[in-house]
């Protein structure tokens, strides 16, 4: 229990850990998936796997927005940045994600005008301040981030900003979960649900997991105690033979989500027919593009992009990591050819990626060995 003293309430932490033990059915092994990269990060930072009994295995899911961007889209972003008169604005996390030949960082070093921004509204300001340049915002993220892009595009349209557009790569959380649940070998008993996505979408998009696939689902906050509590709630459902969507993170994520954010997304975006996910392949209706009313602000319509699908490097097993099929350390190149400094795969580049979390917190130990 060496990390319990870091909890907001250490005594409660110990109680929850004891309750988890009491809920286990003798001889049963439990596999629970945490979907969000933020949870993965917390789990390793606070050593939660050491706190959990051996019978409870945590498997990492596909909820890191940087990790799921396919190589072809990075190549497209680099092609945008390489154009004369164009400035590409992107989040810092994207700079070191490998494209087929280079990263955005390499492209910037070679002279492309690429600016790291904290917010899409910073990209909008850059466009306002540089009317002679075409400014393209490289939008990524799940439903946590998409409403911010939506409001930014609403404002760009209201200001009639002619030199601003969005290269939209927003994705939605439900389709990849459905794709995983449809895998014949997917042996997950329940899910720790993404707290920040739920602040926007609420519980509704997750109902199908309990209703159609018979798996319990608990939306959780990001403190170690939140995650432990969610695991306890999942095990309690399994012990009771229940299967529901529950909310452990009510203090920040209302069950109904955020209606303003959902309305903004509905106004600005529409679903793509299909989108390629790194490691998971094409998933129908799993990503957003700008709605026709915002076509003037759509970089994919304004600029000619390569738009090629580029297969992941052969050595890279990010797809298996994202599906929870292997642990990061089981990847052939983990910690050797692939490190945060020189990453082959996205799961090692993003600080929220499962591989980076393992690597940064020194959790190289194979199962059964001391960490």
């Amino acid at each position, binding site marked *: 229990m060496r990390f319990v003293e870091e909890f907001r309430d250490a005594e409660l932490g110990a109680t929850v850990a004891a309750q988890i033990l009491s809920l286990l059915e003798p001889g049963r092994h439990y596999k629970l998936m945490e979907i969000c990269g933020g949870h993965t990060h917390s789990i390793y930072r606070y050593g939660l796997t050491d706190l959990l009994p051996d019978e409870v295995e945590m498997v990492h899911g596909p909820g890191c927005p940087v990790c799921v961007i396919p190589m072809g889209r990075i190549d497209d972003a680099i092609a945008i940045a390489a154009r004369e008169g164009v400035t590409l604005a992107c989040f*810092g996390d994207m700079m070191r994600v490998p494209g087929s030949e280079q990263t955005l960082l390499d492209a910037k070093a070679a002279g492309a005008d690429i600016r790291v*921004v904290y*917010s899409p509204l*910073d990209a909008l300001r850059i466009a306002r301040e540089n009317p002679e340049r075409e400014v393209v915002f490289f939008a990524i993220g799940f439903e946590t981030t998409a409403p911010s892009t939506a409001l930014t595009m609403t404002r760009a349209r209201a200001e009639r900003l002619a030199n601003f557009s969005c290269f939209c790569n927003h994705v939605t959380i439900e389709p990849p979960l459905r794709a995983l649940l449809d895998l014949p070998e997917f042996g997950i008993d329940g899910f720790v649900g993404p707290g920040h996505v739920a602040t926007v979408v609420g519980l509704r998009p997750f109902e199908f997991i309990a209703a159609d696939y018979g798996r319990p689902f608990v939306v959780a906050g990001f*403190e170690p105690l939140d995650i432990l509590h969610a695991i306890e709630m999942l095990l309690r459902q399994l012990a009771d033979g229940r299967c529901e969507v529950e909310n452990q993170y009510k203090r*920040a*994520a209302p069950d109904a989500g*955020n209606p303003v954010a959902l309305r903004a997304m509905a106004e600005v975006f529409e679903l793509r027919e299909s989108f390629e996910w790194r490691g998971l392949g094409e998933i129908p209706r799993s990503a957003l593009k700008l709605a026709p009313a915002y076509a003037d602000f759509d970089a994919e319509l304004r600029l000619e992009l390569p738009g090629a699908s580029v297969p992941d490097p052969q050595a890279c097993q990010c797809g298996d990591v994202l599906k929870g099929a292997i642990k990061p350390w089981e990847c052939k190149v983990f910690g050797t050819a692939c490190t945060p400094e020189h990453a082959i795969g996205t799961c090692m580049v993003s600080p929220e990626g499962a591989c980076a979390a393992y690597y940064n917190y020194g959790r190289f130990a194979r199962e059964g060995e001391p960490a």
Partner: protein
Amino acid sequence: MCLAIPGQVLEIVDEGNRLAKVDVAGVKRNVSVGLLDDEDGGVAVGDWVLIHVGFAISRVDEAEAEATLKLLAGMEESYEQELEELKGSSIE
């Protein structure tokens, strides 16, 4: 960009565009509070909010905000990077 950091609303700086100045661990920057608009007029001065990519995405109470800040401080590198990126932000 994956983190959501708590900040306290200091003042509404642009009513029309729903921008507020917030204090995030001593860093004072403008963010949009437009996603938290509701029939009660939305975010008010003194409220604590979770901020993600320059937008307040959820209201939280002070105890929650403090606990989250403590948690994030424990995340070291990614928290510091997020704060650095916030310092580089200038939303108008």
